[in-house]
């Protein structure tokens, strides 16, 4: 295998007695665009949150370039700055403008100079088409625009992997397109992405790999043609047929 950025080994997560993830093995190579699909409650989002250490795994290892980041004494903040995350609910900083949202991480975490950070923030905001709203506060822009700013904020940290946790699920239908367009452009540039999504078209057309999760385990894993076009497991077929009928 070429350059593996992330390797997940025997990852399990339980909330009390409720076992959400069971013995997940999974890896992310450079340039992969992986879509994680599955029914609600199948553990997709929890897997993503565990990868970013927003949830502490109950057991198992997460290796980042071969280094275990779940070990005690690892600087979680430092690791997170290399792994970007885009949330379903945007989570833009409400007390800052669009531009400041993209600056704060660069200046405070990456310790870039103000001038350099400003230049980069403008470039990334331009890439997601949000240049007109540099001075707007999050409460003044639409959901789709917020999500585009959130993507620019994550990009400004120059992450190696970008995690997307259902980025379009909280959006009105007419705004889904603008966010997916930005994500497609990123995939085309070779950004390594891990996307939890319900957008089957995105999974089929953009991703290089599709993972189907069911009840806390990875049920099927392969190219979009394999998993979506010719699913092997009955659960996968079941899930996909429900999707088509909707």
């Amino acid at each position, binding site marked *: 295998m070429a350059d593996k950025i992330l390797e997940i080994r025997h990852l399990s997560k339980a909330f009390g007695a409720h076992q959400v993830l069971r013995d997940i093995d999974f890896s992310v190579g450079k340039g992969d665009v992986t879509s994680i699909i599955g029914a609600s409650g199948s553990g997709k989002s929890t897997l993503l949150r565990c990868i970013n250490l927003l949830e502490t795994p109950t057991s198992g290892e997460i290796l980042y370039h071969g280094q275990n980041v779940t070990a005690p004494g690892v600087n979680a903040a*430092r690791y*997170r700055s290399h792994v970007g995350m885009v949330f379903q609910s945007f989570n833009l900083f409400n*007390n800052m*403008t669009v531009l400041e949202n993209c600056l704060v*991480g660069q200046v*405070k*975490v990456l310790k870039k100079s103000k001038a350099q950070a400003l230049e980069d923030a403008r470039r990334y905001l331009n890439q997601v088409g949000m240049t007109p709203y*540099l001075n707007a*506060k999050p409460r003044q822009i639409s959901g789709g625009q917020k999500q585009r700013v959130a993507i620019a904020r994550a990009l400004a940290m120059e992450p190696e992997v970008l995690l997307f946790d259902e980025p379009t699920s909280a959006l009105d239908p007419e705004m889904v397109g603008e966010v997916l367009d930005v994500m497609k452009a990123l995939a085309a540039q070779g950004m390594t992405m891990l996307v939890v999504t319900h957008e089957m078209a995105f999974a089929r057309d953009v991703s290089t790999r599709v993972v189907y999760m069911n009840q806390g385990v990875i049920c099927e894993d392969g190219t979009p043609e394999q998993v979506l076009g010719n699913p092997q497991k009955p659960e996968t077929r079941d899930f996909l047929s429900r999707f088509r009928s909707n």
Partner: protein
Amino acid sequence: MDKFVKLIQDVEVLWSKYHPMYLNGVKNTLILALVATVIGFLIGLVCGVLNTIPCAKHDPAPKRVFLKLVRGLIRVYVEVFRGTPMVLQAVFIFYGLPYFTDGAVAFRGNAGMWLASIIIVSINTGAYMAESVRGGIISVDPGQTEGAKAIGMTHVQTMLHVILPQALRNILPQIGNNFIINLKDTSVMFIISFTEFFAAHKYIVGVNNMYFPSATVEMIGYLTMTLVASFLLRLVERMMDGADNYELVQEDSLTMTAGTYNHPHRGTPFDERSKESRERVRQGLKFGRNRGER
């Protein structure tokens, strides 16, 4: 009615004779309330921030023990100072210190009185503010913390740049509340002979027995102070919220922005319609297509 005339006359008499004393009282009250509210807020801020440091099961044991201890101490502080009257706290501290040190350490003279008053009111305010700040911090959407963590911010950075600015905006009305309460409650400091506004009243009525007129002056004085204070606080709140609108730097290519439709030669769609209808009317008049004519 003549009683009111008499009251006004009495107030005028009191004011012309004692206004330097009243004004000095107002000045001392304002300074004490302001300084004590600021210090009390800082105490509350520190307590609130310490109280909300996350503590997980997998953290090292010394950190967990330390945090437990700190939380316990803050809890005791808040309960004791919130649960006893400030008059009594003043007496307790002012007379307790010389009692325990056999008079070696005491709040002496004018400076000592100021110091004692500021300490007591600050500590008291701090006990209330500790809970307000804690409430302000936990009321900020957890998504904000996650967003900050996700770009690699540490807990301290998250607090400083993301959570506290929002929490403080949310508790600003409570800070103002505390300031107004302090304006009034500093009046109990007369017990350690601090000469604030109410102490001026005590002194003046002791000389001339004009209880009711002097109380009227006090009432008007306190109400004026609190009204001005609430007005200023509203102003500060509005300033903190910033402008409601923002400037577009250029057009957004990805979305249709409703409501910003504009064309240099056309004006808004509403202008367009009115211009069209005006034109229609003019044409109608010109070519004489009136009713009944065919």
